[in-house]
């Protein structure tokens, strides 16, 4: 046997010592290495087994509707690198740290092994001496990392799974689901473990080899030495270790481990929008169908989302519906939609031929017709459970109405998802279909839709009362000022600030602040109408489109520096969604605006808060969706005598009050406790004397929860604007 390296340098070992001779071929050139012999065969098999599942998913994803996700490639690439390979989002939760250790360990072992290939098959000679010693230490450390983390994950998946890991009931009966997470994790464990055994067996059987700093190998070797093992033991461990490694490598993309390819891809294609923006319906005026009724009507990116889900359940951690036992579980929804997609379009070429061959010819016509009607890829109807899942009505059978209508669009699921899955649009697309095409939705919504249509506010209150809150405050309406007069601030009051008695107080407080700052401002008054935000979240894109177009036109008529609004929903829509309709305005939230006034010294906060404890509730549409966390806090902290506390679920981890996504306008879906009461419970952990909010709907929801607990007298729930106005000199 020819030696592959120069052993005379010392402090090394012979590569491929005692391996079967077929692995010991020596190649004359790189060409021979790549195209001849055993490595070629192994690589070819590997290529096919790896590529086929990916190619299959590529074909499935291509079924989806077109969507451009190839803009700003530099930003996308950066995200794929940092959040994908770098796992920037994975490490946000404790289990993610374990995942990172596993990933790094695996990477070290992979690169280390590759390095030996370089040593053995090239003229380079570096595998000796102190390099060898440290290399051994690194590899052993990585091995320990692999063994320990795979055990932690096996424990977490199968012994004591947290609620996030609970799987949905309906899962397809296929290799990937059968293998689950156990198979790849056991494989990872065995790779590490047999690696140590192999190392130890070699130390015992080949006296020429150096131990380096392989501390685990040395420990195992003492056991082998005591057992008196020899070359045969090493030989067989070598073969077993290789078999495990190959099985693992060949199964990479057929099991859940496929995520190592699809997750970075999905992050690459994730939407780049800042703030929350619903995807507009293309060519709204001429479209014939609206929203998504069948799974293939989703865009290819939305199907890629389904492929990318690794079922970690982080979307559920702070989900308002999962945490209050409602029907909607974003993880279960995306998995069930994926299984539906697979049942419908995932039939492989081989399966298709087999099904054609075995099917009773008399049934063939019917079967194919049904399959074609369902839009199945290979024109083959599947029998049994998978067939039923393929034929299921996606909205009513796969998703179901309580699931579709449960979502508050708070955005936690997308914030928490480490692989960039976009949940909200998928749900809103289904709502669009059921509202616009079928006119089916929870009964309460008809009143708010009609109210918005007729009186331009979801309460349906008389539109001519929109400016009544300002009576006696001398608040000019833009129409009175005229189109040529420019104001500093166009105050967008919003429906809640205009019509809801509780929130009218906030509007009046804000007028007090603007007057104290000596600003020239105006309201649209009777010309203001609902931004269309609730209608849009509820899938009534037609109503949104009508209202939003009208508002953009009205706003474009007037001259102002900036729009200020106390409603984060109005804020988000004007800021992030009106540009699609030609409305580009400078818009800030009241808390941001007040922060500016404090900064420029236009107002001073002097009245003492008397060391009372205050806790801040972050509205989803201000905080999570638009990343405004610090402005309300800075404003509150400017008040003398303020003792401000934060709870764990704050800022990006805030928990929804239950009003968003149009929930305010319908009954909460079935399941207890109520979302707002759950949220109040979290806020009470800070033992507050006051709850500060920065959204009219949060104000109402948290106040209601306080009432339900009998705290309405003792726990004031106040908008930051009101607290500031109270503190004015």
């Amino acid at each position, binding site marked *: 046997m020819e030696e592959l390296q120069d052993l005379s340098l010392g402090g090394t070992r012979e590569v491929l010592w005692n391996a079967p001779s077929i692995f010991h071929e020596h190649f004359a050139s790189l060409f021979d290495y790549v195209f001849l012999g055993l490595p070629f065969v192994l690589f070819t098999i590997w290529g096919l087994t790896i590529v086929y599942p990916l190619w299959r998913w590529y074909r499935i994803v291509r079924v989806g509707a077109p969507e451009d996700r190839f803009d700003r490639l530099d930003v996308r690439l950066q995200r794929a690198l940092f959040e994908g390979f770098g796992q920037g989002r994975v490490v946000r939760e404790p289990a993610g740290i374990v995942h990172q250790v596993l990933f790094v360990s695996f990477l070290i072992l992979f690169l280390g092994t590759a390095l030996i290939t370089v040593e053995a098959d090239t003229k380079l000679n570096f595998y000796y001496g102190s390099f060898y010693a440290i290399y051994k230490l690194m590899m052993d450390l990585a091995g320990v990392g692999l063994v320990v983390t795979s055990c932690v994950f096996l424990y977490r998946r199968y012994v004591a799974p947290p609620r996030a890991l609970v799987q949905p009931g309906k899962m397809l009966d296929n290799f990937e689901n059968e293998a689950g997470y156990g198979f790849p994790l056991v494989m990872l464990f065995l790779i590490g473990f047999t690696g140590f055994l192999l190392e130890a067996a070699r130390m015992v059987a080949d006296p020429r080899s150096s131990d380096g700093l392989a501390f685990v190998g040395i420990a195992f070797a003492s056991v082998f030495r005591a057992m008196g093992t020899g070359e045969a033991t090493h030989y067989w461990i070598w073969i077993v270790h290789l078999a495990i490694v190959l099985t693992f490598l060949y199964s990479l993309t057929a099991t859940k481990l496929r995520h190592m390819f699809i997750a970075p891809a999905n992050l690459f294609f994730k939407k780049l929008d800042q703030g929350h923006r619903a995807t507009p319906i293309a060519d709204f005026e001429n479209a*014939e169908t*609206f929203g998504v009724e069948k799974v293939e009507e989703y865009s290819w990116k939305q199907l890629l989302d389904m492929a990318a889900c690794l079922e970690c359940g982080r979307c559920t951690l702070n989900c308002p519906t999962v945490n209050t036992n409602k029907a909607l579980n974003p993880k279960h929804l995306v998995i069930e939609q994926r299984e539906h997609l697979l049942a419908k379009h995932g039939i492989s070429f081989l399966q298709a031929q087999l099904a054609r061959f075995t099917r009773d010819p008399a049934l063939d016509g019917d079967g194919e017709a049904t399959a074609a009607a369902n839009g199945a890829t290979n024109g083959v109807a599947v029998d049994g459970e998978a067939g039923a899942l393929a034929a299921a009505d996606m909205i009513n059978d796969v998703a179901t109405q309580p699931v579709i209508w449960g979502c508050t669009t708070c955005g936690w699921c997308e914030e928490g998802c480490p692989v960039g899955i976009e949940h909200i649009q998928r749900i809103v697309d289904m709502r669009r279909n059921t509202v*616009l*095409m*079928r*006119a089916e*939705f929870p*009964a309460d919504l*008809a009143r708010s*839709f*009609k*109210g918005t249509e*007729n*009186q331009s506010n979801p309460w*349906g*209150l*008389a*539109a*001519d*009362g929109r400016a009544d809150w300002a009576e006696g405050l001398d608040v000019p309406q833009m129409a009175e000022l005229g189109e040529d007069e420019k104001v500093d601030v166009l105050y967008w009051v919003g429906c809640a600030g205009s019509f809801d008695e509780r929130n009218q107080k906030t509007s009046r407080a804000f007028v007090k602040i603007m007057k104290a700052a000596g600003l020239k401002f105006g309201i649209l008054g*009777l010309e203001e109408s609902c931004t269309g935000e609730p209608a849009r979240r509820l899938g009534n894109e*037609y109503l949104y489109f009508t209202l939003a177009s009208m508002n953009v036109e009205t706003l474009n008529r007037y001259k102002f520096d900036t729009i200020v609004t106390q409603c984060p929903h109005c804020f988000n829509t004007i800021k992030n969604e009106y540009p699609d309709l030609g409305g580009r305005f400078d818009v800030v939230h009241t808390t941001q605006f007040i922060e500016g006034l404090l900064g420029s010294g236009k107002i001073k906060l002097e009245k003492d808060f008397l060391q009372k404890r205050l806790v801040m509730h972050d509205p989803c549409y201000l905080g999570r969706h638009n990343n405004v966390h610090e402005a309300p806090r800075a404003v509150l902290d400017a008040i003398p005598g303020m003792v401000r506390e934060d709870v764990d679920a704050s800022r990006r981890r805030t928990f929804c009050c239950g009003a968003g996504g149009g929930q305010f306008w319908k009954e909460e879906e079935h399941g207890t406790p109520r979302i707002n009461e759950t949220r109040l419970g979290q806020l009470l952990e800070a033992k507050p004397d006051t709850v500060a909010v920065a959204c009219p709907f949060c104000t109402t929801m948290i106040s209601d929860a306080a009432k339900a607990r009998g705290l309405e007298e003792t726990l004031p729930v106040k908008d930051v604007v009101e607290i500031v106005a109270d503190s004015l000199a």
Partner: protein
Amino acid sequence: MKILVPIKRVPDPQTNIAVRPDGTGIVTDNVKFVINPFCEIALEESLRIKEAQGEGEVVLVSIGGKECQEQLRTGLAMGADRAILVVTDGPLDPARAAEVLAKLVAQESPNLVFLGKQAIDDDANQTGQLLAAMLDWPQATFASKVVIGDDKKSVTVTREVDGGLETVAFDLPGIITSDLRLNEPRYASLPGIMKARKKELKEVPLAETGVSAEPKVKQVKIEPPPKRQGGRKVETVQELVNLLHTEAKLI
């Protein structure tokens, strides 16, 4: 089965109504108009009857200015098959409206005329009854439940009467007027709205019907209710009793 559904254009019930200073009517600037809610319920029930039978026609009628097209289109979007607008300069009083409808019934020969029990603007509650009299057709007013006979030749109607329910039946053709609790009208789907744009909306000048626009009953004047006075808080029961005695003169 062919059903004729007359609908009236009225101000949205949520609107604050202001009376013109001269008392000749209401201020209509900035007022949003809708299908009279009772008419909408009648239309919804007619659509349900048609859908249950899987055949038939629902024909809308409105009487008024061209602006009534808006409400007719809404009705078409909900699912009515076609619409007729009898064009007049202003609203007709219930008796004249019934005369117009009687003419249309003669032309269209529907099996059923389904009206709202009253319009929320003038609250007259007469048109259905007058039409029944003019046609000499049976009628059931204030319907809270409508069941068409299996032979499609008769109808059983449950009526909301003071303190209870009354069930009546008659052979078609006939007249039904709807009450509030009959159903919850649907929301038009977007394809429905699109389709409505292409559905037939025939305009018929009032003169063609041969009915006079001259009202049988003249509206002399309308006036708003007196403004509500703000309430007052009293400290003790004794004070309340005293005030009720001395100021309100109730006791």
